[in-house]
């Protein structure tokens, strides 16, 4: 990882500065981006695989697309679906796909793009907080997670574990709406 790419990345994600994270800019052939945007996370359909940062490499060699995919959570059932979806979408343009699972470096919520985070919030899932605030919210019961419905931070944790491995369940004490919070993973 070069310091430059890290700084570029940090600027791109605004206030979320993570100089010590293991972020590496993915190696994606520019001409594949458009079609990759068509593949979404089956659990959070507003997020594309590029928003999520799970595609670490996508290159075309002799008409075959070689993709390296890094799973979010080890047991995430969405990963198998993603692999199949990638094959399907490329088959529509007559290309074969080879998907390789790459575990290291491990996926981190820092890899979700700013655009992805905004789409996630609009969809009703609160974005991951910094590692320390995340701990305060999940263990210390601090009221720091922003309600996706009304924007209040007067929210409480209902359950550390949520509807999927990546989420926790919160409820807003102002508007009373329950909502998912995407846990920080580093």
């Amino acid at each position, binding site marked *: 990882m070069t310091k430059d790419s890290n700084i570029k990345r940090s600027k791109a994600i605004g206030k979320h500065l993570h100089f010590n994270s293991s972020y590496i800019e993915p190696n994606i052939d520019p001409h594949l981006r458009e079609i990759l945007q068509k593949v979404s996370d089956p659990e959070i359909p507003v997020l594309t695989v590029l928003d999520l940062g799970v595609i670490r490499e996508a290159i075309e060699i002799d008409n075959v697309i070689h993709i390296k995919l890094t*799973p979010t*959570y*080890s*047991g*995430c*059932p969405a990963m198998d679906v993603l692999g199949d979806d990638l094959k399907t979408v490329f088959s529509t343009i007559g290309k074969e796909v080879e998907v390789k699972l790459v*575990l*290291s*470096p*491990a*996926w981190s919520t820092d890899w979700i793009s700013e655009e992805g985070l905004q789409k996630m919030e609009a969809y009703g899932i609160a974005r991951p907080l910094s590692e320390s605030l995340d701990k305060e919210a999940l*263990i210390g019961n601090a009221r720091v997670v922003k309600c996706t419905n009304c924007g209040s931070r007067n929210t409480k944790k*209902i*359950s*550390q*574990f*949520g*509807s999927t*491995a990546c989420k926790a*369940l919160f409820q807003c004490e102002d508007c009373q709406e329950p909502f998912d919070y995407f*846990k920080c*993973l*580093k």
Partner: protein
Amino acid sequence: MNKESLYDYILTIADNCLILGQRLGELCGHGPSLETDIAGTNISLDLIGQTRSFYQYAADIEGKGKTEDDIAFLRLEKDYKNCLLVEQPNDHFGYVIGRQYLWDTFYLLFLNELQNSSDETLSAIAKKGIKEVSYHRRFSGDWVKRLGDGSEESHLKMQEVVNGLWPYVDELFDMTGVSKELIKQGIAVDLSKLRETYFKQVSALLEEATLEVPERKYFVYGGKKGVHSEYFGYLLSDLQYMQRTYPNMTW
């Protein structure tokens, strides 16, 4: 490197994840509250996910064209190398939590060492697992404290759980299935080095939970050699039922 000993070594790790994942899976829809129900299945999912990574690697190493599913579903009881602790029945929620905490504490220490393995794949699986297991241990540890330092009845029951599961904890450090050669090559973790920290951490949490640390010095071993408790056969028949009844079936 000896392929066979690496294959065996991977199973001595992954079988624990599979069997505990299966035990937790039994609770799906039967947890005492919504939160604990979801937590149990989430933890199960993480463990099964880790199992898959380990088994896929094991299948590659063996090189006989087997898949992760063959390893999970088509072995005989004596071929599973998990320790006795993880196969103990759910009984009541206290047992689920106690078993989980005693396992999580060990497993987190273990993965912290395994991430330094000279084997790249094992190291990668460990690094990924650490993030997940830290969550698990936080959850199970919190509940041990809540129940231990809770009502009179929850305290009594939790103490009973700790006393009941205690004989199984020393097997976690038993070196069966871990060849000296693998340790020398920096591939495998020397389990005996984790023992002291483990008992220190567990004792500290039990004390915080106002529970007594059992003084018992007698421990039970066998799972790692494939000699399992009576509960195991029942668990396995559930786990293997579909593949045994309809060989090669897929969803």
